[in-house]
């Protein structure tokens, strides 16, 4: 049975291509949300098994979205993988991931096999909990 993945990123072209790639593997059903302020509502309706989340977005950054998810009783435990094009190490240490304690962060451009591996591991780990 395919797993549900929510993509939250303001880059519409990027999310569309990532969705195509994930769906081509046949393992995932993907929903896109390009407006981070709507991410929580979309997730409540879609009930994803994992979330791929951009860091720098207008209106609300990835760290804030992550905090919203973690504060939600149902979505609080789903794995979140952060994707970022941030290039400056200072920003990484100050960024949302470091603050929220999330352990998975992947750089953009995304290495697809790596992402698929990380995603699959994260979903397996979440099932074991």
């Amino acid at each position: 049975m395919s797993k549900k993945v929510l993509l939250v990123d303001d880059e519409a072209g990027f999310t569309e291509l990532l969705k195509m790639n994930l769906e081509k593997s046949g393992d995932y059903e993907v929903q896109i949300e390009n407006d981070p302020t709507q991410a929580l509502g979309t997730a409540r309706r879609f009930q994803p098994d994992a979330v791929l989340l951009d860091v720098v977005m207008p209106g609300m950054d990835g760290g804030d979205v992550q905090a919203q998810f973690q504060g939600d009783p149902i979505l609080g435990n789903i794995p979140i993988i952060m994707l970022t094009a941030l290039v400056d190490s200072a920003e990484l240490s100050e960024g949302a991931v470091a603050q929220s304690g999330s352990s998975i962060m992947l750089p953009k451009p995304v290495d697809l096999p790596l992402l698929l591996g990380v995603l699959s591991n994260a979903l397996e780990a979440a099932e074991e909990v």
Partner: protein
Amino acid sequence: MEPVSIVESVLDNLPVAIFAKDATDDFTFILWNKKQEEVTTIRRAKALGKNDYKLFSRESADYFRSVDKAVIKRGKLMKVPDEILETQDGEEVHLRTVKIPVFDAATQRQLVVGISEDITEQVRSREKLESLNKTLTEANRELQETQMQLIQAEKLESIGRLAAGVAHEVKNPLALLLLGVDYLSQGIDPDDQNVDKILGQMRDAVERADRIVRGLVDFSSQRALMREQTNLKRLLDDVLLLIRHELTRSNTAVELSVPADLPDVYLDLSKFEQVLINLIINATHAMGKTESPKLEIVVLCEDLQGVVKNQGARKKEVFRSGDRVVHLELRDNGHGIDSKDSGRVFDPFFTTKATGQGTGLGLSVSRKIVALHGGELTLKNRENVKGAVAKITLPTKVEAIPGKQGSKKVKDVDTNASKLA
């Protein structure tokens, strides 16, 4: 005292040097007044009965003789605007001389009468003025060069600030390209509807990355002021693309309002981008603690009315009634300008930012760049609303720009600059 005739007395008291030569007797001097003694430093007694070759250098005498002969040949008055004479003391004297051919019927002699005015002081003053003017021109040129270097130095600082953001903006299209490659490398199914779409998106991504990089390269270029006929809307789109990352990170909402029928202005694109980037970055810093930071960019065109030159506000010294101008306002909702700082914001090196966050050159350089375009830049607090407004007023006529005329070349500016997210 020897008796002198009235004519001799008058001649000796004239403020001009007067002499006469007898052309029929090898151009020997037959008249030499007091002023002529003074300018040549040769006494009359020594000069009379001698010709130029006995009194002056060979070179000078040759010249005088050639003019004398020409005067007789033409039979009419000749003016020598600046004749240089070397005196006995080795001093150079400048004379403005008129030479007149006179035929003395009584004695049947052909004479050349000369009247010379000593213009040495005038020439010296003129030379001094010319030299001073040259020094001043040189100093002015050096000052302009220094100003351009300062503008460039400040721009390099901006580029440093923008670099991380621009890299981020380039990484996004690169990420998209890589996903496209990943998808296509898994094999292409002829019935796959996604392929065309993916190829289109990959092409867009390459163009977008190219536009961002080109924008940065154009912005970095160092060159003399070069104005082009510019559409302000396109310029603003390009600028917003370059600083998109900064605006996104600071969560700043941007509202852009530009009338469709806005006349073109004449701008140096790279330098004007520098001004706008400076002002927008300043605004985002000022809105650092604002809950919902919002930057309104409003462009308006106005035909100035009732403006009297040299009266009241500074604007009135720059523009006149009837001038068509374009106003560009950047309104933020940040902390505004502290009243104690309002008189100093344009001072070089004045900054309210923490050490390392700004050199304090941005606004002074921006004002200089705007002035080079014949416009003006003001910065003040907004009325009735918290925040500051930076206002640039620009002439729409190329004639209004100081210095040389602007180029009418239209730059091929990309019209598809990406929207702000």
